[in-house]
Structures are given as C-alpha cells and as structure tokens.
C-alpha cells in the first residue's frame, strides 16, 4: 500500500501508568512523512503523555515504537534526538540576551581553538545561514531574543529543535496559545515550509479551527485512548463532530448533584470588565447558593480574570459590584476584607507556604481571627485546624507535617480549608483539580458544593468536563471574550465548542 511505505513513525499498543492511574491504554498512532498531524483531546486525555514518551521524557510501560520500520527504544531524550525526533515545548526556554542564531546553537558553539575558547561568531552565522537555506523562512536571526515578538521566538525555538541535520519529525506542543491571529498565520507559513522540506509534524492544539486550517490528519484522545484518527478532508465530508469525540461520557460520576433551582441573591457582579491584552466585555453575576462555571483554555484570559476579581491586578474598564455596590479592589488584602477568597491555579507558587505545617497554612489568610492582641492562639488554632482537617478529609491527618509532604490533592484541600477558615462570601477556584488524583477530585467537588450553600462559588478551568460537571451555570471564555449567555447557560458539547472554536455550534 502507498500509505504504509510513507509512515515515518508508528507506535502501537503504547501503555503508560502512573500508580493506579492509566494515562495511556493501548494506544496506536502513526505519522506519515511530510504530514501535519494534529493531536486533540481535553486535559488529561493522554496526548501530552504520548508526546512525552515519543520525546523520551517518560519511559513507556508497554507497546512498541518504530521509526521508518525500525523498532526504537526512546527511553531518554538523547535517544529520541538520535532517532530524529525534535520537540518544541509549550514554553520554550530561550536566553533573552543572546541573538536568535546564538540561541539556536546554544551549547554547540564549537569555540575557536586557543586559550580563551572564544565563541566562533562567524561559524554560528554561517551555520544559521545554512539552516535558513534548508528552511527558507524570513527572520532576522541577529536580533536579540528579548527584542523579538512571540512568534519569532517560537520560530527560533523550532529552528533550535531542527538544528541537527537528521531531524525528520517535529513535535509542537500548543505553539499558538500565546500568539495573535496574524502571528499565527506566519507560524503556519513556517510549518508549511517545513512540511514541504519533508518534515513530519505532530501538532498539539486545543483550538479546532486551527486543525481545519493547517492539519492533514488528526487524532482525538479521550481517557487515555485513541478514539479516532481521520483526515481533515474526511472529517469535513462526513461532518464529524469533534467536540463529541473529545467528551468523556463517563465523567459525570465524580460530580456531586447540582444545587436546587432557587435563585439566591447576587453577591458578586461584573459589568463589562476588561483588561488590556487579557479579556474584555465580561459581565456575569454570581449568586449565593450556586456554582458558576467559566470554561477557558490557556490564553483565554481566565487566569487574569481571576486575579482581577481578587484585586491582585487591576481592570482597565468596567466595574465589580459586591452586594450591588461598586467596589474597587486595590489588593488581595482588600478583596479578602470584602469577602472574596481565591483558590489560585498554581497552589505551589501562589497558594501555600510549602515548608510550613498545616496549622500555619490553614490560618494564614485570617490572622486576625487566629490571634488575640497580636499573639497567635496556638492551642485554639490547632483545634480549629484539626476540625478543618476532618472536614476536608486531609490524608494523612498530620497537623505538624510541612505541606511539601502531602500529595497535590491534599495540598489543594489545605488551600480550601484556608478558605473555609476565612469564611468568605465569594470563592473563586482556578484550575481546582490540576495534578489531583480522582479520589481527592470528588472530595474537592463536594467541598465546592458545600461552600455554595452559604456563598457564591466561581469555578474557572480549562477542563470542560469539570466546568460542566460541577457548575450550575456555565459560560465559555475564548481569547478574552465571553461566549454564550451566562444567564441561561449552555449545554455540554456547546460549551466545549464555544471554548475551543469561539462560537456556539449552529
């Protein structure tokens, strides 16, 4: 068969487990020479795990990988590079103060002989010229990286990955998440150039319209399995619904029942909230007794929105109303005083003091309540922390253990306990279950529902199933703009469609 001979990379029966979690379950995947192959799937569907196996970051637990018919072991990144696989990470690390060419050949400067081992600038320039000869792309590689726009940095990162002559397979992990429309098209132009020179590209994205724009074929992952591989032309012809393929029908089971339909009073309201280069026109109301879900991918502006609502950064336009009164939130301390609590998306760097123990962390957001005349009420705080620990079901129940000794899910429970101790009116959760195992996830959703009895809860997440499963009303954010009507809410497949396509499915 014609297609069989063209296959440069073929993976079959790939398995990967993390403890009890099966990340990849007997996955088959193949890549043809010179094609652009998109990988799709919601968070945790397994696409990143496959990429990490192909790039030698993870060792697979089962299955075989062949490249041009030859079986290969990709146990280490070096082995993957030698097999001709080049990877560009989602956030490539480049040195801002060096030029594009210097970044491409970083670590391979081949210094001139002699005492000082000076960098051979002329040599680097000629190698960069040769690279640009192979891939005719218009870019000034003598510019400092720090002076380049994001798309040119991305291109430098790609050239860095392709600097070795024998790289035939390129993996791009969400390269467009920080790019504007116009920048995206110049990245796509580069991808077509690479394609024309015979390089096969695996392209991870969350945005469906990009698949139809650039890819030849695509593969959809769901729950660690490859649920569909088809050509874009076939998908067009058969009008296949990709969002439906991506959604996991069994995901509903870990979510608690929704709240009753009673309309609670509006606690927090935003009117036409906007911030330069992040989001615009955000208007919604969060009511006591309900969970409002906001679905948005990375780069959609949810992270900035959460920080504006918490007073950590300012909005440029619009207003925030609490209990119907317009407020200006100048700082997180201000927001806390107004009864807003944020469970941040990155609990390690934003939510916890990892070296401190459970009591310290649980009481930190409400030191006024935890102290008397300026002195900490050590005994009382320990009792309160013990109660909170039971309430959030912390495992193991060790008050004196530093936070770094707990798993991700239990760390998140401590952040939630911190919020419980604060007794806020509005709780904002950002990516509440990233890096959280399934048991702790169910508990965290239950705690949110619990909180929503007395307060308004807002959940912002890039996990569509999560937003849909836990929230009473949902809205999607696409590149900073809201999609859908927040008062009525939108159904599940529509929600995914809205978040990845930027409009409702007609």
């Amino acid at each position, binding site marked *: 068969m014609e297609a069989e001979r063209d296959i440069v990379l073929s993976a079959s029966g790939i398995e990967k487990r993390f403890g009890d979690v099966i990340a990849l379950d007997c996955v088959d995947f193949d890549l043809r020479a010179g094609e652009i192959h998109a990988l799709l799937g919601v968070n945790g569907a397994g696409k990143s795990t496959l990429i990490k196996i192909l790039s030698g970051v993870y060792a697979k637990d089962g299955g075989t990988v062949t490249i041009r018919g030859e079986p290969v072991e990709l146990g280490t990144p070096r082995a993957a590079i030698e097999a001709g696989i080049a990877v560009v990470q989602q956030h490539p690390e480049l040195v801002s103060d060096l030029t594009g060419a210097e970044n491409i050949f970083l670590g391979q400067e081949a210094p001139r002989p002699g005492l000082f081992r000076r960098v051979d600038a002329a040599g680097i320039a000629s190698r960069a010229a040769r690279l640009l000869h192979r891939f005719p792309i218009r870019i000034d590689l003598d510019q400092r990286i720090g002076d380049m726009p994001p798309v040119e940095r991305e291109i430098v990162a790609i050239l860095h990955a392709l600097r070795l002559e024998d790289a035939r397979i390129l993996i791009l992990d969400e390269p467009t998440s920080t790019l504007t429309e116009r920048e995206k098209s110049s990245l796509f132009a580069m991808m077509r150039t690479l394609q024309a020179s015979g390089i096969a590209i695996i392209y991870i994205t969350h945005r469906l319209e990009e698949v139809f724009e650039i890819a030849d074929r695509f593969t959809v992952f769901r729950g660690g399995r490859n649920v569909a591989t088809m050509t874009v032309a076939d998908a067009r012809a058969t009008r296949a619904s990709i969002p439906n393929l991506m959604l996991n029908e069994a995901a509903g089971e870990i979510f608690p029942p929704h709240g009753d339909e009673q309309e609670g009073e509006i606690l927090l309201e935003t009117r036409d909230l906007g911030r330069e280069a992040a989001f615009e026109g955000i208007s919604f109301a969060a009511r006591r007794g309900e969970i409002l879900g906001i679905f948005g991918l990375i780069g959609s502006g949810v992270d900035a929105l959460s920080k504006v609502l918490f007073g950590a950064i300012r909005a440029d336009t619009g207003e925030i109303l609490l209990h119907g009164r317009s407020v200006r939130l100048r700082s*997180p*301390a201000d927001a806390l005083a107004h009864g807003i609590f944020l469970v941040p998306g990155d609990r390690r760097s*934003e939510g916890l003091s990892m070296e401190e123990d459970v009591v*310290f962390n649980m009481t930190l957001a*409400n*030191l006024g309540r*935890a102290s008397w005349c300026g002195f*900490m009420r050590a005994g009382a705080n320990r009792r309160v922390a013990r109660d909170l620990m039971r309430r959030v079901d912390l495992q193991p129940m060790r008050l004196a253990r530093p936070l770094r000794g707990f798993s991700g899910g239990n760390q998140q429970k401590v952040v939630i306990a911190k919020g419980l101790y604060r007794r806020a009116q509005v709780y904002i959760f950002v990516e509440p279950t990233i890096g959280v195992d399934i048991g702790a996830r169910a508990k965290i959703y239950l705690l949110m529902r619990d909180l929503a009895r007395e307060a308004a809860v807002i959940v912002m997440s890039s996990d569509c199933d999560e937003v849909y499963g836990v929230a009473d009303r949902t809205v999607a954010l696409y590149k900073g703009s809201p999609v859908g009507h927040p008062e009525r809410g939108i159904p599940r497949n529509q929600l995914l469609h809205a978040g990845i396509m930027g409009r409702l499915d007609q």
Partner: protein
Amino acid sequence: MRTHPVLMRLLAFAAIVAVVACVFQSLTPTFLTAENLRGLLRHMAINGLASLGLTFVIVVRHVDLSFPGVASLGAMTLGWLISTNAPLLEAVCGAMAVGAAFGLLNGIAVARLKLPDIVTTIATGGLAIGLAYFYSDGTTISQNFMMSGLLDLNDAKVFGIDEPFAILLATAVIAYLVLHTSRAGHAFYATGENPVSARFSGIGVRRTVVLAFIICGVTGCLAIMLLVASAGASDVTAGNQLLMPAFAAVYLGAALFGRPSVPATMAGTLLMSMMLSGFVLLATPYYYSDAIVSTVLIAAILAFDPDLLRAVRHGIPTGRERAV
C-alpha cells in the same frame, strides 16, 4: 518510632558545643575559667544583638549588608550626643533612630522600589559610613563617656548577670515572642517562604519586609552601643567587626536547626563566640580567626541551602522527599 527531630538537633548542638569547649580547653587551660566565660558572654552579647536583627531579614529571604556601616554611624551619633552632654537615654535613642531610619531606607528601596538587596544595602552602608565622618572628621569621640554612665553598661550587673548579656537575653525574649508567637511572626515566615501566597493571604508583604530591615538596623545600633561601652570610645570603623560573625551565626544556627529562628541564631552566636574567644586566648592573629569564621559561614550556607545540600548528597533521598 521516629526520634523527635527537635530533640535530635538539640543533642547535636550540645555535642558540638562540648567538642568545641573540649578542644579549646585542651589547647589553653584558661578557656573554661569563670573570668573567660564572662568575657565570652559579654562578647556574645554584641554579636548576638546584631545577629538577632539580621535573623528577621534572613527570614524574609533578603540580605542586609548595610548594618555594620549603619552601626558605625550609630556609634558616632551616640558618641557625639554624649559629648554634647545629652542624657544617656537620649543618646541611645538617637543611635537607634539612626538604625531605624536606615532600615526604613533599605526596606523602601528593596520592597517598594524592587532594587536588588545586596547592592542596595552595600550602598546604604557606604552612605552611613560617609555620614559617620561628619561628627568629628573621623577621629574617635570619648568626651564625657566616664560621666555619662555609658561605660556602666559594660560593667554593671542585673540579677547577678553582666548587663550586656542581660540586654541580649531580654532582646532575645522579645524577638522570640515577635517571631514565633505573634501574628507578625507568621507574616515574616510566610513572606519569606512564598511572597505570592502571603500576598494572596492578605499579608502586607512590602510592609513586612520594611519592618524586617528596620529591626535589623535598630539591633545593629544596640549592638554597637555595647561595643562602644566596652571600648570606651566611638570610632568610625566600630561596626566593621559585626558583619561576618552575625551572618555566620544566623546561617550556622539555621543549618543546625533546619531554618532561621531566634533560638537557632542564639545557638549559632554561642558557637561563634566560643570560637572567637578561643582564638583570642590562643593569641591567633585576627586575620586567621577571620578566615576561620568565613569558612564556617560557607559551610553553614552549604548546610542551610536545601538545593545545594541535595546536590552534595546527590542520589540519597532525604526523609522529606521520601514522605512525598
């Protein structure tokens, strides 16, 4: 059963103290005499006060290199005020006000203007030394010192304890209450460990950092007051000898007890003072003892920095990592 970690560390500390004492006692029989131990504690009072203030700055994960210079300015301010017949209390308050003002300056520069702490505090320390020359064009001041009562600070006793050591104990108790039992203490540790999470918990991170620098400036001037009292004169270079022992004490204590804290700093200061006093008895030239203090400082930094430590014992998981 797990052995109690704090108990283990205390035992380790006691063992080190015993070893250091035995070594010096075997080299010079005068080491463990009452007279020498009194001198040792008096010396410890000076370094201990400077180290206590520095502890706050280290807890918020910053560095203050200005306090020796600021202390020199404090010494000259103190001497000048006494030479103009100001009462002792006013003179001491004047010196401490200088320390507080420079602490405020450092804090604003580092916390609000986001200047790099090392370079900034080197500069403010230099500024303070420059100002110290204004009082007397750099000559020592000792007029009125006998009558003012300043020298009594060094010689008087409180409840049978030499007054310098009593001042150190009182300051240490206050520092302990603030850092380890008060609301502000939690703010210091939270700020140092993770300023973002501290800010998201409603803590005034900048204010906390400024406060730490002010405390460091004030205790540096308290320390210099004792030094001036024992020397009997104010000198523009008085503060220079504070720098290395203070840093070594804080880091040594942190290495021994796992993190910087008031008890850790006191333990570190005790060890440092024992070593310095031993070297004096052995008539070691000061430049050798300086070199040894610096070596201890580097060893302590190595032990305190978890990343470095992990790199050193590469491959052996620590108890904490196993817990994860």
